[in-house]
């Protein structure tokens, strides 16, 4: 498996750390309530198909990335800087 780091280019997956669902970008407000926090921290759909996860180019530039990929075909659609994705959410 290989990922296109927007900063470093195409690299082997061994350079990356896998975190999990990119929903981790959307941290609820402190007073959002138990359901929102439960969803943020614990509930994952685990769909077969398209997923968005967070990876870090830990053995490279250190950038956190949002990777959109397909768990069935293993195709990787986009690799974006997590900071840019987060900025766009604001």
């Amino acid at each position: 498996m290989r990922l296109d780091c927007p900063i470093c280019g195409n690299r082997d997956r061994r350079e990356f750390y896998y975190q999990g669902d990119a929903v981790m970008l959307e941290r609820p407000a402190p007073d959002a309530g138990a359901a929102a926090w439960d969803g943020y921290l614990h509930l994952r759909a685990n769909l077969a198909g398209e997923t968005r996860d967070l990876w870090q180019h830990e053995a490279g530039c250190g950038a956190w990335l949002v990777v959109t990929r397909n768990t069935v075909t293993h195709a990787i659609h986009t690799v974006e800087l997590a900071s840019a994705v987060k900025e766009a959410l604001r």
Partner: protein
Amino acid sequence: MRIKGKGLVDRSDPVTFRFDGRSYDGFAGDTVASALLANDVKLMGRSFKYHRPRGVLTAGSEEPNALITVGAGASAEPNVRATTQEIYEGLEVRSQNAWPSLDLDALAVNNLFAPLLGAGFYYKTFMWPKAFWERVYEPVIRRAAGLGGLSGQPNPDTYERAFAFCDVLVIGAGPAGLMAALTAARAGADVIIADEDARPGGRLNAELLEVDGELGHVWAARAVAELESMSNVRVMSRTTVTGAYDQGTFGALERVNQHRGGRSDGAPLECFWRIVTKHSILAAGAIERPIAFQNNDRPGIMTAGAVRAYLNRWGVSPGRAVTVFTNNNDAYRTAQDMVAAGVRVAAVIDSRADVRSTGEFPVYRGAQVCNSNGGKELESISIIVNGKSEKIQTDCLAMSGGWNPTVHLTCHMNSRPTWRADIQAFVPTEGAVPGMSTAGACRGTFSTHGCLTEGAAAAREVLAALGKKVSDTALPQAEDAPYNLAPLWAVAGKGRAWLDFQNDVCVKDVKQAAVENFRSVEHMKRYTTQGMATDQGKNSNVAALAVLADATGRGIPQTGTTTFRPPYSPVAIAAMGAGAQGKGFAPQRFTTSHRASVAAGAPMIEAGLWYRPSYFPKPGEKTWRQSCDREVNHVRNAVGICDVSTLGKIDIQGPDAAALLDFVYINTFSTLKVGRVRYGLMLREDGTVLDDGTCARLGATRFVMTTTTAAAGTVMRHLEFVAQCLRPEWQVAMTSTTEQWAQFAVAGPKSRELLNGLLDAPIDNDNWPFMACGEVSVLGVGGRLFRISFSGEHAYEIAVPARYGEALFRELVARAEGLGGGAYGMEALNVLRIEKGFITHSEIHGRTTAYDVGMGRMISATKDCIGKVMAARPGLVVKDRERLVGFKPIGAVKQLSAGAHVFAAGAQASRENDQGYITSVGFSPSFGAYIGLGFVKSGPERYGEVMRAVDHLHELEVEVEICPPVFVDPEGRRARG
């Protein structure tokens, strides 16, 4: 026997090797199989289950029978195919699965019990008495059945791993692969062409077919020479592409040194490549199928293509009177080539009645071979023609049930192959692997012309995608003979007709599986063991599923195939894991004081990847405890030195650095004054403690955070996550400086006295109070000084650039010894911190909260922080949670053990009565007794209670008193002194 004037072996270069202790002659270019056949050795192995005598079946990596062990002793390698192992001077190989010898195998008696050993026999027999299975039957079966064995010793050979990148990977160097590589390379593409064989050329080396008016192998050699002369091409022979993986990654095994004697020239035995490319062209060829008939496994019975490969490539005829059994026209080439070489062809038995084939040999049309006769070698075959039986004397039967395209790699990414009725074979499904196209025999195109055409066409497509100008390469002239066959999988009749030679699976076994309702091809495979082990059924799977299809009344495409998985052919784990043996398994990290510590006799212990001194023994000390007690006393009474460089150090800078720290720590750092240090605790978002440490403010926008040794990487990743994923608007950047600074604890009442001998500007309690920090000059070297304490004593940590670390450590230790102290190691460090109730990852082990460790009130009420919301969940703040306490032994047994669980006095020591557990223990010289830290339900409310601490593992029970976790100087006066 060797045939004069035939073959591509180098007759000027004789080679001697040994097989089962006997010496044989061959030539450079021979494989073990071809050289043994040249010496008229046909018996090369024993079968897996029945111990039937077996000879070579094929001439390639698909070989199921002729498996040998290469070498001896620790470097011996089992299950090597005699058909791929090249001979070299001094090569030593042995047969397998036979005792006392290959010729006189005692376990051939299994063959007599064959009726008991059919499909699934181990599920049905050996059922009684029950206890016999594990103790008697299984060990006996395991010993009797099997392939080669491992030496049981560490592998002394060296292996490598490597990456390679290219524009296009061509897999296979037959006519299709060579044409593809030439076309791509001439247009300037960066090409890798890999072939499992030592000699590129594929079937061109095994046939007498012409390309552009010259013999195919001559054209192939010319093509290879051209490719090798080009700087944009890498020709990788002896390299098997073993798997196709995601995003254009391919695994490939290069046998760098398996064909040479003497493994001391520095080259690895094998190299496992990861080849990365957007475009690949599969030109892997095809594998010939045997035909199942009674006793079709006798030595001397081979695939037709293999028989003529031995003749044309190695100059060897596997027999003196050859017969051919075929359902297609391709096998006639074997008869023609044999006759041309002067070898007698006794008969061609063609299962097709309606063909008009002729040659300089008798042809039986509409005929079938129904049995073979002989002992350990073939002597004759029985055929049925026009309903009548006939016997033909022959010592070599060349059989062909047609060819199976080598589709394996196209199926490694979950695709299934497509059935083509006209060639009665599976071909690759279009688009099976992104970026991969197929050419030649592996896609069902068998003529040389067809292979060349498709190779060139596949390359043109790649070049177009690469945006390269396509050069006008003329296509070489070559034969374009049609390929005709009529399906014939198994000859009807009694007895055992082999499908899978390696696993002794016969037609009746597959039928039995169907009868017992193992109708799915995957179930049939597992019930019969069809297609398992080293050959993975390369020449038997399709025939087996055809028999299954017939037995279940389905068609072959409806029956489907089993799953093709990497690797294509066996890969040694040592090759895939190259570099990860021994010390290569995990990198070793050494501190700057490592040499000094080792020289002082300190046993080094692992702390993550780091190595740290356990204790520093002095003359006369007989146990580690004596050293540890002395070192603790040094710190409590004089001064001790400890290398703390392994703690993570993260330099954090930017206008929002303080905001970041406020967000990751439960307490506040924005209020910290420049030149001061503060202890901080950080949580995971779920409210569990992540790590703790100190953070020093070096400037308005600059902090240096320390982490625990174990969590340095985790914390760094966490900080980056918070900064990039949660607060990208903040202006803050961080970098790890753990390895740039050597840092030493100087701890004890005489610490300042020691430091003032080293610092160019002396310090006192006013200009450097507890928790002060700043830059200092240490013997002329710029450094940092932090007044922090992990021992509870008046203490400092002094940091200098790493290159001065060793010198400073030696200087500090010498001065400490002059003041009645010295170096201390991890054991003493642990005792000192337990005495003070300071936590480590023994306590913050991933299940405890700030509340549990007594720091619940440190969570700032005035700001948000990571983990704050979840830490406030009701279940995480109830009083009866297991909370941090101290333990003192008060009964007859004075020892404590970490891991012991705690129970109320008088209660049974069982899980449901569990009240907590002990996490850290140490012998406190200050108390003259063991003390411990741990967790007890409602802990702080139970001080003074006497409980049972039971360590079931060490069978230790101790009466303990629950006490506050701080044993020494609870008011913290010493650190401020």
